[in-house]
């Protein structure tokens, strides 16, 4: 029984990672695929249902309002959204780990400043902070990625700091200090490897959250700008035609769902259920 239970949980994680990997590979391969031009308009195919055919070709997933091939748009959208999300997670991961380890290792005013900044950021709901800063700083893809990254470091930072606080008192760190090792060396060689696994777990969960945040912003018209497609933007574009062709809004949502579910599967596999706080330490964002 115990073995069966164990292997079932494993299956979740394998499925989740396979899903994420498949999407990442597909997104990377989009330019190589034999897809139609995602910008070419054909009014005959406007709002065409999936599998619609014209004299010359098949629209596998139909067409959007302007008659652009939907499969091509969706593939490009997935590529855009994934690219932004992966880069944003990378930024917040590096920033959060660095700031958290510095705060926990040096303590004192540095720690107070860093953690104060983190607390302040948590006082403003993440979506709102993103909306306001995207409104002010603009929403080019680069800026969007940067803003998503800058607003998401606190989760990493808090845990990295907490772990650094206990690691810095451990014998191997103290021994290194007595032998004249620099703080930088200690953080890099002793602290970083010890916090890395936990940071990876947070990153796998945060990835799904960032995908949703990017989609929400683009849905609201504050993220990726047309004619470039993104998953959230496509859902927005489809909302007008919900009665005529609901697929336009449904399909991109399914992709987001798969990405978030994959990310949850993976992160859950490595989060002990027995912690007993019911996942409290990770209040999700909307």
């Amino acid at each position, binding site marked *: 029984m115990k073995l069966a239970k164990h292997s079932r949980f494993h299956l979740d994680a394998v499925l989740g990672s396979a899903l994420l990997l498949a999407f990442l590979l597909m997104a990377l391969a989009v330019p190589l695929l034999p897809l139609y031009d995602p910008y070419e308009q054909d009014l005959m195919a406007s709002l065409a249902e999936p599998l619609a055919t014209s004299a010359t070709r098949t629209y596998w997933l139909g067409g959007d309002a302007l008659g652009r091939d939907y499969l091509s748009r969706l593939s490009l959208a997935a590529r855009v959204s994934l690219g932004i999300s992966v880069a944003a997670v990378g930024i917040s991961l590096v920033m959060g780990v660095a700031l958290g380890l510095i705060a926990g290792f040096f303590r004192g005013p540095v720690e107070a400043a860093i953690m104060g900044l983190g607390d302040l950021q948590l006082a403003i*709901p993440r979506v*709102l*902070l993103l909306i306001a800063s995207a409104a002010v700083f603009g929403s080019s893809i680069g800026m969007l990625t940067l803003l998503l990254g800058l607003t998401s470091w606190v989760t990493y930072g808090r845990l990295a700091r907490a772990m650094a606080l206990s690691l810095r008192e451990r014998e191997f760190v103290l021994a290194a200090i007595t032998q004249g090792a620099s703080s930088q060396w200690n953080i890099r060689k002793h602290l970083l490897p010890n916090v890395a696994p936990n940071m990876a777990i947070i990153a796998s969960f945060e990835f799904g959250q960032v995908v949703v945040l990017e*989609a929400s912003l683009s849905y609201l018209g504050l993220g990726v700008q047309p004619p470039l497609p993104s998953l959230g933007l496509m859902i927005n574009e489809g909302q007008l035609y919900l009665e005529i062709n*609901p697929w336009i809004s449904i399909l991109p949502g399914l992709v987001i769902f798969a990405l978030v579910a994959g990310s*949850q599967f993976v992160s859950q596999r490595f989060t002990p259920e027995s912690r*007993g706080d019911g*996942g409290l330490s990770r209040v*999700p964002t909307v």
Partner: protein
Amino acid sequence: MMSFVAKRVLQAGLTIAGVLTVGFILIRAAGDPVALLLPENATVEDAARMRAALGLDLPLWRQYLSFMADALRGDLGMSFRQQTSAVGLVLERLPATMELAFAAFAIGVILAFGLDLMLRIAGSERLRKVVLWVALTRQAIPTFWFGLLLILLFSVTLRWLPALGRGTPAHLVLPAFTLGTYELALYLRLLEASFREQETHDYVRTAYAKGLGRARVMLREILPNVLLPMVTLAGLNLGVLLGGTVVTETVFSWPGVGRLIVQAVSQRDYPVVVAGVLMTSLIFVVLNLVVDLLYAVLDPRVRLA
């Protein structure tokens, strides 16, 4: 107790000052509003006069001080598009957002308690897994897409409920359900964990020993002890709900603060954007404070720590 209250209030005050500072930075980073405000044929002198009137010719630190002083008096500037105060516009929309947030909050908490008690009385582990799986699936669905799916099903296909706007209680059903179910999985897990923890206590064994039935022990003995952490978590998440209203309001054309903010962004009406964001955050900070203080009143261990 008093020192705990004082410390906590001071901390909230600092956070509010920090949030306002973020607002100042955002509004200054938005650039010179004079170009947006004046008609195209305005002269350079007009622009200079307007800058002076708005206090934009002062050094930055004086602008900051007057921004903070105004903010403390409840003034976050005038809307660029409508000749009223930005705070006034937000206050006008606040009841709609509050209505949505509280309805969603109530739906989430009632659903969680109802489901958990039913599962507990039914006592089937398999059923519990199914319910939790459904709740987790909901959590993996972005809120705005879930709202669209509900519109598609209940408004477009079945024509049972209105999709857009606010007015009758029927208008509230879909948006509140959309928002309220998001954190169901979190609530269910917390309830499960707290019940499991409470069941190990002596008073539960005593209750069973007295011959009380399972349902009675659950409802009369354990439930009151589980309420506290549950209400705390839900109260703190009211802030998360407030953030979630932005997207939900846009999907359902709900005339609340979130929709106001999104519309103001597209009109580049920065004072309204900043006022909306700041006031929502302030509500969040104050709610956190109230929940913390309530917790200390209800549980003496907190204030002694």
